[in-house]
């Protein structure tokens, strides 16, 4: 059957014009600037950069403004923009051991070289609404103290010395890239980590929580969580050597997991790893827990059938742009599809009716 496929243009144009008006809201209230979003909604900006998989605070702030604060829509905008950029190369792997730490805590060791640095955290706040923020107020000055110079060592190094933790041996195999080749199974750890670092925060959190509640339990401790700036270094072909091209803020989480040993591995602690753009510790911890759960096979553990152990399930459902794209497309016109379904149901009913009449007649 022929179905009208034209005629929406005027309605669409009017809808977009109204969207622009609604985005601006009440014009008697001053308009939000990109620098305001970048500076004052920094954690939203960080999430958009992490899941949009492109580090550029100004672009992320613009995307948040354009999407009226809908972060998944903003991530979509960033992903779309990313595809228009020519790629100049890949950085040398960042050295998180040389991070200028804003925050560095360990839940496994109280006294450790470098100390426990809380940083600008929500932890230990009372989670009571602060009405002072609703009124324009004076900003209290953050206290300072003389800092100890030098790098802060990774906690896992201490356990490594006793051989109590599995090693992460140095390796320089070029990693696969899911933005260049489609994600296919089996996925090695490098590919899983790439998929997890850009995965939806909510989905990753839910899966990580499921492992804590017993679905693929692996007893994670936060060995270390650190947030801070690291240098980005890239080989420049014209120069013939690597230079620092900039600096990015990252959140890194290393979990230390109880491990009784298996057929192939001795009893020791094993590791999960999370590394995420920006300040995003909920995501980094979740990533480390899910990374560890997905490692069951290489560590010779049992597959207990937990969702977080199923690589295909996790990786194919973790991307919120793929998910929302497929989910939301069902609201778009499906008139022809539905028309054929309607015909089919009518036909089945006619046939069923005919059989009944026939049976009654017999």
């Amino acid at each position, binding site marked *: 059957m022929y179905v009208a496929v034209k005629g929406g243009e005027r309605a669409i144009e009017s809808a977009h014009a109204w969207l622009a008006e609604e985005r601006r809201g009440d014009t008697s209230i001053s308009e939000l600037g990109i620098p305001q979003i970048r500076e004052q909604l920094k954690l939203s900006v960080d999430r958009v950069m992490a899941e949009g*998989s*492109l*580090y*550029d605070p*100004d*672009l992320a702030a613009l995307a948040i403004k354009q999407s009226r604060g809908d972060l998944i829509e903003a991530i979509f905008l960033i992903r779309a923009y990313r595809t228009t*950029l*020519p*790629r*100049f*190369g*890949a*950085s*040398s*792997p*960042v050295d*998180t*051991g040389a991070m*200028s*730490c*804003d*925050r560095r805590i360990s839940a496994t060791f*109280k006294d450790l070289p470098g100390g*426990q*640095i*809380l940083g*600008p955290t929500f932890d230990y706040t009372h989670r009571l609404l602060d009405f002072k923020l609703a009124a324009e107020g004076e900003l209290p000055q953050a*206290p*300072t*103290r*003389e*800092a100890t110079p030098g790098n802060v060592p990774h906690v896992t190094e201490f356990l490594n010395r006793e051989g109590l933790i599995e090693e*992460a041996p*140095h*390796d*320089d*195999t070029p*990693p*696969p890239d899911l*933005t260049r080749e489609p994600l296919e199974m089996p996925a090695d*750890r*490098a*590919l899983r*980590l*790439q998929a997890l*670092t*850009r995965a939806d925060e909510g989905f990753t959190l839910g899966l990580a929580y499921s492992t804590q509640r017993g679905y693929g339990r692996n007893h994670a401790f936060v060995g270390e969580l650190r947030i801070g700036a690291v240098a*980005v270094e*890239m080989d*420049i072909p*014209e120069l013939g050597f690597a*230079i*620092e*091209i*900039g*600096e*990015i803020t990252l959140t*890194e989480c*290393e979990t230390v997991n109880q491990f009784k040993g298996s057929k192939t591995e001795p009893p020791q602690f094993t590791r999960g*790893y999370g590394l995420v753009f920006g300040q995003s510790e909920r995501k980094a911890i979740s990533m480390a827990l899910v990374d560890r759960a997905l490692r069951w096979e290489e560590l010779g553990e049992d597959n207990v059938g937990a969702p977080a152990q199923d690589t295909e399930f996790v990786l194919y459902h973790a991307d919120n742009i793929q998910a929302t794209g497929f989910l939301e497309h069902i609201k778009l016109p499906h008139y022809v599809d539905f028309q054929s379904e309607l015909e089919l149901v009518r036909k089945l009913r006619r046939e069923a009716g005919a059989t009944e009449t026939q049976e009654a007649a017999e």
Partner: protein
Amino acid sequence: MALLAKAPEGRVAALLAAAMARPVFDWLRAPEIGSAMVRGRAGGTGAPFNLGEVTVTRCALTLESGEVGHAYIQGRRKADAEAAALVDGLMQGPAAEQVRKAVLEPLEAERKDRVSKRAARAAATKVEFFTLMRGED
């Protein structure tokens, strides 16, 4: 080059303009915006993996005196890339000492100041544990 890449927007051009007249140059490659894939290592030290991209601006130019200046800097900042490439070119010529004093040294001092201010705030949030007397022993 690290200092030039990490300088705040407009700073390199401002310092250079204060030091000398704008050098004459030809583009070898006009400023171009693209990306670089940032990598991390599993467990911080293990096998590399792709973390995500960062926006990068690059350009290359030849100064009148023949030196070639390159720039690769984070962000979408064409004017900053131009200023960085100019400084890179000048550092290879007779004006090197002048540029070091007028541009690189102030950039380094400003950066040190920014980094140490942040580090001092972090240091103030360092926990100092103490054990309470337990009354036994």
